[in-house]
């Protein structure tokens, strides 16, 4: 009964004002009757607002105080709907109608989390990823720098010379495009607190970051590269079929994209190795 109600809710007309946020080339329109909330989103996602284009997905947002603020994240597939629930939000999404509803507290972090999770679900079905990694474009080529917190993602992003376009210092957006991969800018920021540029470029290489006594790249075996890559993939859904799909996509990625370890000194000289 609960599922039927959710479906019926998703088929009702979306009301209120709206704003379309386009990340990774995927425009998502959010509707709300609270204009101040939409204005906040406009500021939060400056550079990623799509003015005038049609959206691929529509979400109706209902602002409400959280029911159980401490509840852990759960992403589940139930009767044709994705359900994404955490203490501060609850979202339901129908991938067929491409409509969803988000009930959340009026803060930017909740919808940011919903966006990230939604994009991981969309990317998982097309061989792409959200990756815990910094990324940037230089000379028309994108470079991705993966690593856990403290590995140097923000450091290497902050050391980038002026001719480098920063895509993100925290969460990289990678889409499969035929036989190649594209890296897109994201508004998902880390310690740098700076939104990436909303542009994309073909991915040239992925570096596994390590801080070291000198700038040096080293080869990585396919198995080590896969382990390191998978450790940095953002994926939350409790869905065996999609988990298996992400695993195979990761193995395919590792087989196609050059992956190296990169030890680096905390100065801009490391960028001379990346051309």
């Amino acid at each position, binding site marked *: 009964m609960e599922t039927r109600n959710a479906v019926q809710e998703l088929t009702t007309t979306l009301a209120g004002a709206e704003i379309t946020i386009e990340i990774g080339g995927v425009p998502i329109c959010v509707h709300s009757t609270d204009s101040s909330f939409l204005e906040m989103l406009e500021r939060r996602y400056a550079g990623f607002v799509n003015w005038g284009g049609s959206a691929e997905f529509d979400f109706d947002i209902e602002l409400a105080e959280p029911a159980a603020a401490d509840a852990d994240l759960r992403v589940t597939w139930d009767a044709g709907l994705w359900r994404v629930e955490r203490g501060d939000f609850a979202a339901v999404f129908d991938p067929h109608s491409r409509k969803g509803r988000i009930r959340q507290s009026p803060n930017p972090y909740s919808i940011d989390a919903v966006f990230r999770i939604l994009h991981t679900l969309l990317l998982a079905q097309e061989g792409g990823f959200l990756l815990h990694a910094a990324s940037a474009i230089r000379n028309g080529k994108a470079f991705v720098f993966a690593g856990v917190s403290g590995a140097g993602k923000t450091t290497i992003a902050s050391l980038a010379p002026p001719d480098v376009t920063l895509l993100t210092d925290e969460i990289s957006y990678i889409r499969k495009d035929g036989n190649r991969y594209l890296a897109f800018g994201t508004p998902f920021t880390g310690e740098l607190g700076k939104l990436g540029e909303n542009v994309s470029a073909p991915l040239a290489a992925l570096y596994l970051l390590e801080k070291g006594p000198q700038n040096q790249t080293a080869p990585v*075996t*396919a*198995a080590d590269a*896969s*382990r390191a890559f*998978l*450790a940095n993939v953002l*994926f939350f859904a409790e869905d*065996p*079929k999609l*988990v*298996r*799909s992400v*695993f*195979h996509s990761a*193995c395919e990625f*590792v087989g196609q994209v050059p992956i190296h370890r990169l030890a680096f000194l905390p100065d801009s000289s490391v960028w001379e190795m990346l051309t």
Partner: protein
Amino acid sequence: MSCKLYVERSPRVAARKLGDEVMIMSGLDSTLFTLDEVATIIWEAADGSIPLEEIVDSKICAQFEVERGEALLDATELVEGLAGHGILLLSSEPVIMPNSPRKAGQ
């Protein structure tokens, strides 16, 4: 007389051979496992139709200098551990294969 142990790859995992290693991801909790050379041999042979002791005899003892009893003990411990993670399915009877045998990773 001890009963035979049949091992079968779980359909709920994803697996790939990368270099000399087989990597397996559980579809249930996304846990990643890496199999060493001997575990890979057992994994690849685990189609549910061959008893573990036969796999040990024909695939492990034939390739490695190891005493059969020790090899079977180690192999049993290994498959029970992998079964505990949902990677392998164990049975005292051969698994009826409705179609042609699956290949590792499929």
